């Protein structure tokens, strides 16, 4: 158990895998160094990607008391993609799953707690990346194995892998939902990426959804379909949460290689796919909205930033017009925003709105999937 002050002092190192880079020769170090091999002594903080290769490992069977409950557990030396080697606990694996030179990625895990009211420590640990989880003993393998079987029968080329949740999304969840680390049900998530032509994407994803939910029972309210209606930042994916073995909740993300690349690399990756179909392009829509914001002479800088950010990050709500058109708007939008979205004149002349056929003042927030009449 690290003492609380040492834990505080090293929080960026262990919670974010932050080391340093030498300002002269750009060599990177973890943990931080005071004198570089090149002789330089000025460093800048550097956050590592967390991707690496397992160079050696062991399984501890005789452990210090603080780790007794975890026995047996694995520890390894990982060579990070940026160069330095670190010692890291290996999580969600058994000894048989490991091999020298296998890829791993850093994930965030609870590490130990100092009694009921003491400090809980978290740690960056390493998790085997890619499709290499082949052992029998781990939860990930128990979950993935039956899914692999149905996927093989379906015949689409695919990749399936455990998706570690990012520290930031865990943090957000703890904050917004007031839940403890242990209560986050989809700490374990699986991503299935299909390699199918553009015109078969949607059908293929839903077909896989249907097969997966035959294996594991889905939780209906956790279904999110961002393939039919992509987020305005371009994110496309079909998410569901299923009840896996041992009654644990597991999030399953279904998408195609194209969608995965956009999700992982952003719109830059999108150029590659432009012009393949005639469907209205989410990227163009997004770019148009940015242009619109920039062209607006009345908006001030702060408003611009906030609009821009909304477009990039905000959660979406979907609003349906009386004609049945679905419109994406940022969460927190009011009926008046909706009116302006239809046409500036509609906005200027709006006094009250009908939400789901009942009257409402136009400046109250509307909720997703309600039908608006002006």
């Amino acid at each position, binding site marked *: 158990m*690290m003492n609380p002050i*040492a834990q505080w002092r*090293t929080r960026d190192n*262990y919670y974010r895998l932050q080391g340093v880079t030498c300002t002269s020769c750009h060599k990177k170090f973890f*943990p931080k160094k005071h004198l570089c091999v090149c002789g330089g002594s000025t460093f800048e903080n550097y956050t590592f990607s967390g991707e690496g290769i397992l*160079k*050696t*490992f*062991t*399984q*501890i*069977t*005789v*452990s*210090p*008391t603080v*780790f007794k409950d*975890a026995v047996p*557990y694995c*520890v*390894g*030396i990982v060579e990070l993609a940026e160069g*330095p*080697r*670190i*010692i*890291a*606990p290996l999580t969600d694996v058994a*000894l048989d799953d490991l091999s*020298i030179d296998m890829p791993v990625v850093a994930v965030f895990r609870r*590490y130990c707690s100092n009694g009921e009211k003491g400090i809980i*420590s978290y*740690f960056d640990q390493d998790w085997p990346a890619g499709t290499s989880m082949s052992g029998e003993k781990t939860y990930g393998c128990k979950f993935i194995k039956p899914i692999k079987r149905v996927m093989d029968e379906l015949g689409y080329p695919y990749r399936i892998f455990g998706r570690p949740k990012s520290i930031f999304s865990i943090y957000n969840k703890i904050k917004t939902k007031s839940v403890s680390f242990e209560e986050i049900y989809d700490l374990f998530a699986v991503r299935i990426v299909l390699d199918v032509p553009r015109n078969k994407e949607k059908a293929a994803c839903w077909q896989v959804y249907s097969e997966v939910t035959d294996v594991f029972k889905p939780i209906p309210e956790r279904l999110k379909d961002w393939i039919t209606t992509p987020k305005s930042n371009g994110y496309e994916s079909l998410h569901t949460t299923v009840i896996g073995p041992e009654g644990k909740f597991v999030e399953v993300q279904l998408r195609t290689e194209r969608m995965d690349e956009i999700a992982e690399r952003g719109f830059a990756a999108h150029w590659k796919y432009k012009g393949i179909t005639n469907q209205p392009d989410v990227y163009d829509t997004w770019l148009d909205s940015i242009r619109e914001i920039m062209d607006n002479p009345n908006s001030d800088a702060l408003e611009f930033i906030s609009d821009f950010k909304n477009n990039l990050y905000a959660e979406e709500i979907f609003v349906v017009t009386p004609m049945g058109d679905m419109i994406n708007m940022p969460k927190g939008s009011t009926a008046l925003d909706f009116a302006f979205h239809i046409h500036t004149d509609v906005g200027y002349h709006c006094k009250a709105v009908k939400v789901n056929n009942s009257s409402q003042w136009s400046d109250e927030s509307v909720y997703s999937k309600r039908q608006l009449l002006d």
Partner: protein
Amino acid sequence: MNVAVIGVGHTKFGELWDQSINDLLAHAQLEAFADARLKPQAIDEIYTANMCAGMIEGQLHLGALAAEVIGVDLPATRIEAACVSGSLALRAGMMAIASKQAEVVLVSGVEKMTDVSNDVIATTLFGASDVEAEKYTGVTFPGLFAMITRSYFHKYGITRKDLAHVSVKNHAHAALNPLAHLRKSITHEQVLASSMVADPLSLLDCSLVSDGAAAVVLCSKEFAEKNNYTPIYITGSGASVDSIHLAARDDITTFQATNKAAQKAFAMAGVTPDDIDVLEVHDAFTMAEIMAVEDLGFVEKGKGAHAIASGEMNLDGRLPTNPSGGLKAKGHPVGATGVAQAVEIVKQLRGECGQRQVDNAKIGLTHNVGGIGTTVAVHIFQKEV
């Protein structure tokens, strides 16, 4: 810089519940004085090696304690460098004589480890590593060496079966050593069947947790000649360090610090590995002995396991290694180990080792390691200079 060893003392190693750290220190030190036919008052300085007492018993200030138990008032310093404390205390004693600040020096080493739980011992021994960078990953000291072992297996294609020969050999040697902690022979099958500690290292791949103390009386060549001693000389001393954070090293299948310390010691003594008749190496783990004989230059890299399996390193082999039984079977009271290795080599060169005597030994070597190949000290002992 030839420094003479004129007296040696060595307690039994083992689970010595009836003896305190003071008792052990007194026993080893007084035995060394008796052997040197000197009164404690004859010395000018004391260096005492100890690693764990501060953490296990809360006892610091070991230098003063070492002086107290033999009733002297003179400069007394405690030296700590994890498991290599003993050899660095020996080096400090040599330096005191070489600098002519002292003519006769007492070097001792002591550790009392069996009074407390394994958990306390494990935490204390982990102090030899980079605590902030490594400890909180849950890795243990054997775990660090297990990762080295796996890398070595991967690179040189040996297996646990090859390691087991080291354990079998050292236990066979210890059976002949009345001061050893575990005086019994074991079989190859027993080693392989012993319970796993940190894969691929099992219980019988690991050295012992022991109580014990050792001491030597050093003096200048002039003092030895003037007083008609027939001493054993320390003719070479080399030490070096490598990164304390294991992951910071590119290659963990070779200990650079052993290479460097050995080169310095051989150069100072003016001898080569071919001249060595007997050696005590730091076999904290079976893998460590294989790496030691390679990194010291006795065996080609990657061939150490084969050399040991072939019997070359047995008592009656070409290069008897760890005739005392080593850390594996004689025991490893960490602060005492480096000094105890020196005692064994001195006794071998004097021809006082009874059943485990190496025939006609004239030049001997000790190799002592602190941490995971982090600090290494090598000393060369000669009968004639």
